[in-house]
């Protein structure tokens, strides 16, 4: 058994070296396929982060009339919080609003002057509402327009932001669905190309396989080297694809960060390095072995 394994590995190595050009071409295709898969996996992570970051930016603000008491506002807040669809409700009191307003306009002397002249706080208290799902906003807005609340409420920002919110919701849905389909199609293409390349490599050896059978070699001795070679291809292609992909990703990372500040690609990849490498090796070995097994089955029939 050990002799058999030793011989299988020996022939796998020899096959790899003696068919250098064919091996290199197969390897190159596998590396490309693996890089494509990595790119798509990363693309998935990026869109996910982008979507969460966008979702985080959507909210509804309710501005209360200056006459409304804090007690009433907190009641509304409590009522909102008891609704299932709502993630957070943040209360901004009139004083807080004024402080924030001053802070944002501190470089504009005319505004602070105007405020001082006014003598009282002109700003309303508000609630900032974030929903778990952007699709819930129309329902929340409808709830806030309820008759019983009308006396307290000055305005709800939803009507102003309606178009933007709806558009963002649509974009988020499209990115999620489209990304999934695109990933699936591209992975399928990459896998098929790598698969046919390996099959072609074995096809060119079909005569040799026939001769080995006539010499009385067992199926294991014939099949073994091709499978060992498939594993070797998988490991080498997996390693090289990661080695190519990582510098590429860290080069692109700053540009992505401009669009999505939450996405730090380099540190993400560094943090997930081992699982990333593991996935690549796994996919590589799987591709090599499975296509080898399927291709060789055809020529091993006696």
């Amino acid at each position, binding site marked *: 058994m050990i*002799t058999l394994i030793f*011989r299988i590995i020996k022939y796998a190595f*020899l096959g790899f070296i*003696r068919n250098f050009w064919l091996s290199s071409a197969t390897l190159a295709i596998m590396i490309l396929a693996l890089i494509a898969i990595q790119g798509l996996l990363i693309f998935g992570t990026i869109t996910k982060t982008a979507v969460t970051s966008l979702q985080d930016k959507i909210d509804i603000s309710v501005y209360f009339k200056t006459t409304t008491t804090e007690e009433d506002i907190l009641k509304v807040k409590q009522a909102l919080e008891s609704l299932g669809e709502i993630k957070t409700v943040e209360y901004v009191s009139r004083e807080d609003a004024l402080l924030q307003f001053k802070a944002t306009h501190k470089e504009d002397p005319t505004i602070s002057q105007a405020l001082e002249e006014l003598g009282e706080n002109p700003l309303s208290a508000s609630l900032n509402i974030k929903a778990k799902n952007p699709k819930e906003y129309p329902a929340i807005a409808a709830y806030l327009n309820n008759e019983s609340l009308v006396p307290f409420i000055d305005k709800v920002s939803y009507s102003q932001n309606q178009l933007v919110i709806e558009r963002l919701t649509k974009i988020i849905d499209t990115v999620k669905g489209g990304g999934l389909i695109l990933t699936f199609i591209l992975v399928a293409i990459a896998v098929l190309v790598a698969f046919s390349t390996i099959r072609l490599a074995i096809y060119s050896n079909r005569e*040799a396989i026939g*001769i080995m059978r006539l010499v*009385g*070699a067992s*199926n294991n001795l014939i099949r073994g080297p091709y499978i060992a070679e498939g594993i070797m291809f998988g490991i080498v292609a997996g390693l090289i694809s990661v080695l190519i992909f990582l510098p590429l990703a860290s080069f692109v990372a700053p540009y992505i960060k401009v669009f999505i500040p939450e996405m730090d690609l380099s540190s993400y990849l560094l943090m997930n390095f081992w699982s990333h490498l593991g996935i690549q090796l796994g996919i590589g070995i799987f591709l090599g072995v499975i296509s080898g097994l399927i291709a060789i089955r055809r020529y091993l029939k*006696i």
Partner: protein
Amino acid sequence: MIVFQNVSKFYNHNTIALDNVDFKIAPNEFVSIVGRSGAGKSTIIKLLIGEEKPTKGRIFFDGIEVTKLKPKALSSLRRRIGIVFQEFRLLPEKTAYENVAFALEASGRPQSEIEEFVPQLFEMIGIKDKMDNFPRELSGGEKQRVAIARALINRPDVVIADEPTGNLDPINTYEIIKLLVKINELGTTLILATHNKEIINSLGKRVLSLDEGRLIRDEEEGRYTLS
């Protein structure tokens, strides 16, 4: 040792490759199978090593019915038969040494045995200096010697040579036939398929003559008498 019992082989129902062929070959015999191209020589060999199955009839090798063997048993049967082909059929990606060693590896022999026997055999067939060359670097005669070495390395009970000299010049032909006769004299059954008249007439051994799939003559010390 080898028995063909009323064996017929049809391709696509109407092409007759073998028609009711019936013969026996005893141990240590040297038998030539002659006939024109397409007479059925190669079919007999393919059926004997189980590469194809007969349409009718039964084939026995040393009491084992070849037609009923499972793939695994078929591999071990093939290790008892050494085959030499017209087109050599060496593994192109392996050196001459590895081609011969592979037959031993196929029967699971230990490495030490391989390292001992293979060079000895190369010495015997006279191309020891070409051991590490690839088949593409060898002449036709050298390739055929490597193929014979591969056929012999497992000490088979039977060596089958299918037109072994078809691609060789007269001098190499003579050398190869001399080698086959020597192998037979050392105690191996030998089956030689050929359409080379001079070889048959000079051998003076048993001859089976085939024509259009039928066995038309079976003579001890036969001569090539097809028109």
